[in-house]
């Protein structure tokens, strides 16, 4: 498995590891498929809209666009199955196998292990949401100090776990209606159409408004976030969204003296245990590229 540096320094700026090449490729396939599916599906949902005929014509109209839609849907479902295998393998190889090796694996430990995986929602997420609302309503200047994966990341990650099966199964039923109605009642197609159509609209709005706002369009990232291409997040955004994890990683890399203050203007008031530096301070190294720490296959070493 390829090893990744947790912190990279390029032209005096630090970048923090977020995702492996494998994960980025998965994400790009997911994103491409979703965009193609939305562009070839929404003209059917809104077939009376003036724009729908032009958009559908771009994909070959009624004769070709459904084929494009089904192809993208198949790729997405294969990707989903692959991701489940990938996830299971990584959890097994990274977490369960070492315990088995030490002969410390028990049902209780396994459950605890699964419940404390970094992408599983936890109490801290709830605290962060409460803190976020305080911040958004101007009750505090302190933003929630996000962990490696914030509640927003988890929401974005788990949403397709609901969406892809709902859309995939309903799509397969409508596509293979003769087969599906061999053992299911004909009304299932009505339910499949409602589920497919409405869930697709929810997914599209969720991704193109909420997800894109958070990763591309919010003022600190606009016009485009690059982490989905590079796999590394800038220090500024790490401080803004993942402050607790940022501090943890910096300490681990022996860079306590370079830790930036938390996001916002409350730095002076906040209780900081670690020495802080101003964002404008230069990094102690003038090297063009320097790395700290390493991680294997997305799992912090």
């Amino acid at each position, binding site marked *: 498995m390829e090893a990744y540096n947790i912190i990279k320094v390029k032209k005096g700026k630090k970048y923090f590891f977020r995702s492996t090449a494998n994960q980025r490729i998965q994400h790009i396939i997911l994103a491409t498929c979703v965009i193609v599916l939305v562009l070839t599906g929404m003209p*059917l949902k809104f*077939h*009376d809209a003036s724009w729908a*005929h032009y958009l*559908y014509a771009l994909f070959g*109209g*009624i*004769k070709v666009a459904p084929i494009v839609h089904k192809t993208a849907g198949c790729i997405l479902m294969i990707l989903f199955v692959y991701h489940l295998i990938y996830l299971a393998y990584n959890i097994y190889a990274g977490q369960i196998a070492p315990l088995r090796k030490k002969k410390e694996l028990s049902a209780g430990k396994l459950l605890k292990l699964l419940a404390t995986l970094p992408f599983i929602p936890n109490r801290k997420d709830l605290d962060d949401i409460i803190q*976020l609302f305080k*911040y*958004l*309503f*101007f*009750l*505090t*200047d302190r933003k929630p100090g996000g962990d490696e994966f914030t509640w927003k990341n988890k929401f974005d990650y788990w949403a397709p776990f609901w969406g892809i099966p709902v859309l995939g199964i309903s799509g397969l039923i*409508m596509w293979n*209606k*003769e*087969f599906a*109605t*061999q053992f*299911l*009642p*004909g*009304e299932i*197609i*009505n*339910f499949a*159409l*409602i*589920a497919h159509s*409405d*869930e697709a*609209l*929810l997914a599209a*709005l*969720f991704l193109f*408004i*909420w997800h894109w*706002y958070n990763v591309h369009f*919010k*003022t*600190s990232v606009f016009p485009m976030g690059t982490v989905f291409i590079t796999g590394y997040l800038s220090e500024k955004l790490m401080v803004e969204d993942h402050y607790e994890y940022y501090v943890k990683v910096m300490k681990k890399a022996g860079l306590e003296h370079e830790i930036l203050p938390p996001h*916002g*203007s*409350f730095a002076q*008031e906040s209780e900081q245990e670690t020495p802080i530096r101003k964002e404008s301070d230069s990094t102690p190294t003038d090297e063009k590229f320097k790395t700290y720490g390493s991680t294997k296959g997305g799992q912090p070493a």
Partner: protein
Amino acid sequence: MKLKRFNKFFFSCCGFFLLNLFFVTSFMVTDSLAADIGNCLLCHKYPGLSRIDEEGKFRLLYVNESIFANSVHAKVKCEGCHTDIKKIPHDPAKKVNCLSECHIIEPSSEQKFSHKEVATFLSKSVHAKLDEKQNPKKYAEDMPDCLDCHDNPLFRPLSFFKRVRPGISEMALGRCRVCHKKDEFIFRFYNHVTTRLHTTRSPKNIAEMCGRCHDDPKIVARHNLTTRAVFSYGETFHGKAANYLDERIPDCLDCHINRGKSVHQMLSHEDPLSITYDTNKSAICTNIECHPKATPRLANYKVHLELTPENSPKEYYFQLFFIALTGGTLLPLMGIMFLDLFRRLFPNIRITRRK
């Protein structure tokens, strides 16, 4: 020298243009030969010809010769339908009766041609004005007359049923010319035969035609119909594909007419002889041209699904769940987004003392 060359070029262009004009106009003339023996177009060819009738309605009396010449009735004399007109200039013409015998001789029976048979079919269909006891049905005036569906569309000759492109096939014309010498005769009969081998309207046009009544809320309410049929058809993949001008997709007539019967013999879904009757309707979907591998279960798919708690409670609440899910997910997230943007744009607003 240069001027001479230019003149030569200029005159060649003019010559070419005039030659083209000659061919185009001569084609248009031959193309627009309608059966106007009575010379009615002498007056009716003028686009502005119109009058206000006794009921105060504006009546356009103009006949577009080119459209008429390409219509299904191109070879019927004007007097063939307007039987009350005996002299020119004529008195106000009466409404045309589509069941009158016209001058054409039907070749198989050698009798005068008439649409009377259609009226017989229609009188036995769900669209009949009289009920089984020959009493006028309630709201009989809502039942369609000939012109409600037949707006005399242009010919749309084809090369075979739904899967083939419309238009005159050059290959087929070659075969006709083996025996028949006159192109005018060949075109006429090619059009006559091929337009009757398929519907002259696209599925979208047919749905729109039926929708004139079946999507009219007043008619739907008056006749206690459970659905706006064309609207609900439009929400299915068939309807959507029809809207995208798919010629292969089933339209109203494909599912509501018993195979091999005239479209005028449409029966109510409550009639045991109807293809849409509960125990017969599986034959619609499993038709060889549609879903031959399907089981009768497929026909239980509700094409005309009206999402109301009265008509389809299960589907209605299922959709309500997704609407609630969409609203319940997106509204809070949009709220957070809006507040986040506001907080970013106005970071220094003070509401209360900060902790």
